[in-house]
Structures are given as C-alpha cells and as structure tokens.
C-alpha cells in the first residue's frame, strides 16, 4: 500500500547531542601478562601484541603472546588445580561461581565500557545485554554444581578434566562466561584463549576471578592468536576442546582432534533465514529484522542475515525497513545513543567490503542508510541487497557484518525449502500471527534455535547451538551440561 510519494523524512530537525559514557572510573593496565596458576606471569618468550580500539584505531593496551610453552604451563596448572577442584564438595564449587557472578554485577559498568572500547560494540549493548547476560550465566551454572544428577537420570556424572576453550571477538565477555561457567560447575578446570582483537575483558575477568578467591589454576587465561589456539587444541593434557568461531576453523580443529579421544563442541557460523509471513505483526517483524542483522554490527553467528518475506507484503516490509534503517545511528561505541558501533577490525571490514562488491557485481541492488560516519575507525552502514536469490554468493556465504540479503517467497513450503537450502543450520526466525504455523515451522526448519515472533533472544536457561556445519553441541540450559561431563552407568 505504500506509495513512493508519501515518504517520511528523518534528516534534519531535532538531533541528539553527544551522550558519551564516562570512562574515568575505568582502569586498563598498559600491559597484561598471562593468567596462569592464579597469577599474572610474563610469557616465556617475552612477546606481546597490541590491542586497539576499532573506533579510533588507537592502542588500548598490550597483552602477552602465549607460546606453546606458555600453553603447556597453563595446562599443567589446570591439571594441578583439577585434583582439588574436582574433589571439592559440589556446593562449595557452586559458591565460588556465585561469587564470580556477584562480583561481575558489581563491576558491570567498568566491564561494559572496556568491552565497547576493545571490541567496538555500542555501550548500550555492552551495558544492557552483554554484561548482564554474562553475570546471569555464572549465576545459572553456579546453581547446577550440586544438582548434576538431576539432569541425567540413570547416570552417574564425572567431570572431564581440563577443558581448552577458544572464544571469538563478537561477544568477548559473554563467550567467556558461556565457556567458563558450565565447565567449572561440572568440576573441570579451564585454559581459555580470548580472541586476539578482544582480550581485555577476559583479563579483567581473570583479575575478578582471583579477587573472588577461586583456587589458583582453576581458570587460566592465555592470550594469543591462531598459533596459541592450535597449541591448546593439540596439547595432550587437555581432555576437552570447546570452540566458537568460523566454520573454516572449526573444520581444522575437528580434523586436528581426530583420533585423539578428546571430547569437543563446536559453535560455528550461520546464515539464518528470517521468514516473514503476510499475517505477521508487520511493524514488530521489521524491528525483528533490524535486531536480527544490524545490532552488534551483524557480528553474530546466528544473525538473521537472509530475509525471506512473503511476496504480498514485501513492498511494505522493505519500505518500512528502509525508513527504520534511516533512524539507526552508526558511530562512537561509547556514545549512549549509538545503535551500530565499529566493525571489530580492519580485516573484518575488508571482508565485508569485498562482499558488498561481490553483491553488486552479481547484479544485486544495494541500499545503505545515509547516516554520517566518523573519519577514523572501521565502519559499515546498515546495508540491504534486493534482487538476489539462492545462487548469489551474498545469499550463501556468511558475511558477518550489517548486511542483509532479501528474497521473497509465495508459500510456506517454498520458505522452508529456501531456509533449509544451506550447509548451515544455526538459527532461524518466523513471523506470523498464526500459532499452528509457528509450530509447523519449528518442526520443519533444520536449525538449532528457532525464534518465533522475536529474534536474537538469549537466556542462560535456553540451549543454543547448530545443526549441520553450524556446529555440534549445545551451550546454555540443562543441555549445556553435557559438554563438560562424562556419563557413567
């Protein structure tokens, strides 16, 4: 029904003044050592690397580069601590984890600011989503520590030992919580490597864990890049590997673990279909699209990066989406009004840009919002591609940026076929007012998480993980305990 003449104007008029989050209460050291055996120790080879603020390209700090030797130290420390930790009364383990949760709540503002500085995500997201969810994860799993037998009827449970954990840069603190909390609750000890572009909140978490009195060596955090990760994966003293990152690296890890008897869980990439039916609550569906692909700069494995909209409402939906995109503010992550922050790294920005070029070369129509962006730093405006279909690369491949590919469909079956026609299977969204259609869709979509009339909702009680090449294993909820336990008759 929307006609091109009756458009809304969002430029000019009353604008929002800058609303910067204060950082004078935030403390970042000039240099961070590796956290091994309850202490901060210098890397064996004395090498460090910089971590920068992607919004300003300025260095924030330097962190240790962990070599294979450092990883070895960390694994040994974890093994040493495991004896005591696994034999602690489970309720006592739980109380340590409750302490971590409580302290994270107390220090939440500082953690949120550092998360935004180091990774580029808006302070509003760090403050309102990342940090509270991280604390909630610790709370949830703390409570499981002395209740494990209820989750596995007919089985006795035992921890696995030392868990090697490698996490990505899109939700640095939250991913650390997703990994550490269940591992500890189940009686394991941990060697964790944060992503090389976002090590800072992990180091602050290390300080917090020490302050909370957690026994030394239970959690070890070593910073580094691909080689450090490989050293963890290949270390014979590690009993279990947990990895979140790209499917390409997941493949490499699975191959490396072949024949090793190490348990592993992988949470990999996705190219989720967000499906809007004509009988959806349209305005809320449009907001769901925006939440699905533009927030967190699209750096979300379960992002709704493909929109499948029923043809009869496609025009109206796309028009509303374009108007909504014009109200999204791209800019300084520390400004409280920023909706879309900085792209995490130069490398990622180049990847996104190459896909924007590919899309246009493939003949797609590209629309970007017209908001101003800062001169320094890494930025990408929210973008949509129309005139694309299943065979376009921008429809098939994970871009990991604020870029949405839009296709139409006519029938339920067509939507399902398109949604499932991908090697990925992490998540999916369906928007309809009709209850039976929701349940039919959740039955038909081959994905680990289906969001009906919502998108990108997370909760520590709710299991998360993929089908097919989106990974194996679940994190969160009762099902998330599986990954860190041996079940015996």
């Amino acid at each position, binding site marked *: 029904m929307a006609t091109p003449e009756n458009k809304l104007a969002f430029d000019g008029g009353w604008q929002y003044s800058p609303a910067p989050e204060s950082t004078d209460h935030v403390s970042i050291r000039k240099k961070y050592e590796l956290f091994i055996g309850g202490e901060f120790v210098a890397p064996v080879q004395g090498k460090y690397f910089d971590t920068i603020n992607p919004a300003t390209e300025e260095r924030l700090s330097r962190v240790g580069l962990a070599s294979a030797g450092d990883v070895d130290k960390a694994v040994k420390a974890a093994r040493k601590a495991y004896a005591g930790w696994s034999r602690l009364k489970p*309720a006592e383990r*739980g*109380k340590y984890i*409750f302490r971590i949760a409580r302290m994270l709540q107390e220090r939440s503002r500082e953690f949120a600011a550092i998360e935004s500085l180091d990774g580029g995500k808006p302070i509003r997201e760090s403050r309102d989503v990342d940090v509270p969810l991280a604390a*909630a994860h610790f*709370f*949830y799993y*703390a*409570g*499981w*520590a*002395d*209740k494990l037998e*209820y*989750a596995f009827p007919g089985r006795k449970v035992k921890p696995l030992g030392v868990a090697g954990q490698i996490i990505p840069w899109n939700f640095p603190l939250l991913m650390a919580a997703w990994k550490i909390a269940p591992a500890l609750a189940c009686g394991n000890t941990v060697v964790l490597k944060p992503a090389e572009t976002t090590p800072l909140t992990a180091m602050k978490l290390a300080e917090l864990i020490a302050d909370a009195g957690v026994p030394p060596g239970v959690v070890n955090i070593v910073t580094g890049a691909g080689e450090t990760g490989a050293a963890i994966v290949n270390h014979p003293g590690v009993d279990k590997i947990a990895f979140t990152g790209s499917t390409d690296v997941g493949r490499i890890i699975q191959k490396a673990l072949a024949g090793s008897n190490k348990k592993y869980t992988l949470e990999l990439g996705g190219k989720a279909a967000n499906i809007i039916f004509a009988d959806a609550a349209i305005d809320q569906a449009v907001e769901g699209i925006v939440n699905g692909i533009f927030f967190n700069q699209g750096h979300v494995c379960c992002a709704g990066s493909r929109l499948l909209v029923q043809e009869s409402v496609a025009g109206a939906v796309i028009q509303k989406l374009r108007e909504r995109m014009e109200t999204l503010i791209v800019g300084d992550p520390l400004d409280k009004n920023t909706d879309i922050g900085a792209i995490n790294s130069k490398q990622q920005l180049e990847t996104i840009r190459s896909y924007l070029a590919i899309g246009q070369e493939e003949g797609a129509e590209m629309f970007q919002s017209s908001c101003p962006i800062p001169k320094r730093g890494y930025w990408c405006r929210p973008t949509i591609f129309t005139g694309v279909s299943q065979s376009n690369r921008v429809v098939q491949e994970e871009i990991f940026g604020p870029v949405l590919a839009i296709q139409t469909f006519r029938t*339920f079956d067509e939507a399902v076929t398109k949604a499932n026609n991908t090697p990925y299977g992490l998540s999916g969204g369906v928007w309809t007012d009709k*209850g*039976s*259609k929701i*349940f*039919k869709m959740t*039955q038909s979509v081959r994905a680990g998480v289906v969001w009906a009339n919502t998108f990108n909702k997370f909760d*520590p*009680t709710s299991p998360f993980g993929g089908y097919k090449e989106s990974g194996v294993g679940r994190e969160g*909820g*009762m099902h998330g305990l599986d990954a860190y336990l041996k079940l015996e008759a």
Partner: protein
Amino acid sequence: MATASGKTAKRLAVAKTYKIFIGGQFPRTESARYYTLKDRQGAVIANICRSSRKDFRNAMVAARGAQDGWAKASAYLRGQILYRVAEMLEGRREQFSAELKLQGAAMRAADKEVDATIDRLVYFAGWADKYQQVFSSVNPVASSHFNFSVLEPTGVVAILAPEASGLLGLISNIAPVIVGGNTCVALASESMPLCAVSFAEVLHAADVPPGVVNILTGYRSELSGQFASHMDVNAIIYCDGDQQTDKAVQVAAADNIKRVLRRTDVSWADESSQHPYLVRDTQEVKTTWHPIGK
C-alpha cells in the same frame, strides 16, 4: 561505660521485642496475648506473641495479595532474591547462633545449624531457574499437536514448621515453597521461636516482596486447626504429629481439597533432606495443546 553519676557500670542491654511478620511489616499480635520463653535456668528470654486466628487471617490476606506478583516475577529474579537472603543471613550469623544457644543448642551445633541454613538457601536459590527444566515435558501426542506440560505454583501454602528444628527446619520448608512462586504463612516452632522472628528481619533486609513470607509465633494447639481449615489455603505442610493430629489436619484440609504434605520423621540436618521434590510438592502441572499446521 560511665553512668550519669560518673561511675563505671556493667552496660544494660536493650532487650529485643519479638513481634510477628505480616505483609512485610512487624505488628504485635492483635490479640495482645503472649507467652514467656525461658532458658534452661529459668531466666526470661523474651515474651513471644501468641498469635490469634485473626493474625492468621491477616497473614493469609497478605499472602494471597502477594502471590500473583511473586509468581509472575522471573525465575531469575526469585533466585537472585533467595541468594540475597543467604547473603543477609551470613552477615548476621552470630545473632542466629546466639539465639539457638539461648534456646538450648550447644555452641558447635548452633554454628553448624546456621551454616547449613545458609547453604540450604543457596541450594534452593539455585533451583529457581532449573526445576522447570527437570520436571516439565513436551509430550509426543499421537495427533498433530504441540503438547507441553509445565509446573505452576499452587498458590498460598500454610506451613506448620518442625517443632524440633528452630531454624534449619523452618527454612527447609519455606525456601522450596517460595522458590516455586508460591507465598506462605508459617507457624514457628513453639519452643524455639526466636530464629523465626529474626529470620523475618533477614527477609525484610533482602527485599523479599511484602507478603511473600509471613511468620507467626504462638501455640500450635490453637493455630494448627486454623492453618488446616482456612478455605483460601492451597496446600498445607506439617512436620510433626501423632496419628490423631495427623487425621485432624487431613480432615480439615479436605474441605477445599488442600494439597496435604506430611513431612514428619525428616532429619532436616541431613543433606539428603534437601532436594527439588520439595519444590515440586507445591506445584501444579498445566498441559497445553496447540495444532501444528500451515
């Protein structure tokens, strides 16, 4: 400390007035009656409110008024509040130990009981956002329907706390009831009522919403009939009783089909006495069907 005349003297303590706890406040019993609690040497410890049926009625109104909001609070929030209760109790542990000793416990036993109570609160706090996962189900019905069963709180629970366990026994019955979204009115042990009243102060400090827990002291013989027969009580828990009182409670409860939970012969000091079935005991099961189709 110097007196007005300048002489140093032993300081006179300000004795605590033990009231009851209704709707988040500390009124005296409306009956203005009391009984005197004495220690083993016969010295007066305190005057304890001898609650009346009207006090119980008022407590029930408060409990019912609070139940809907409490049940609608997220499981996460209920868990947080219960954890905070544990924090507050930990901070006041000396007070509780002292009260247990006044009532006849040995020093180490008193400290152990306080430890166990705090840990039990943490235990149940941790169940808040998990019992639903353990006890619910998705049911594979034969027709094309999505069918799921979830637990819902039964409503307002009347608790006759264990006579022989003045702190741990009381908390062992209150915590699982409220973690599941119910509200309650509890009658403290007649011979060991002190910790129950002090525990009300802890609840108050922990931001437990008014009316979620209401605590009365008084004569069991006067009040158990009230607890068992009130038509707005959804479930009754009792922890003591010979066969005669057993039957009396059960008969009175039948008038509005109260759920009757008999927890006699439980050794509350044993860790085996804490488990999630205590939560499930005051939950209903709701099953929903919805078609699956285009």
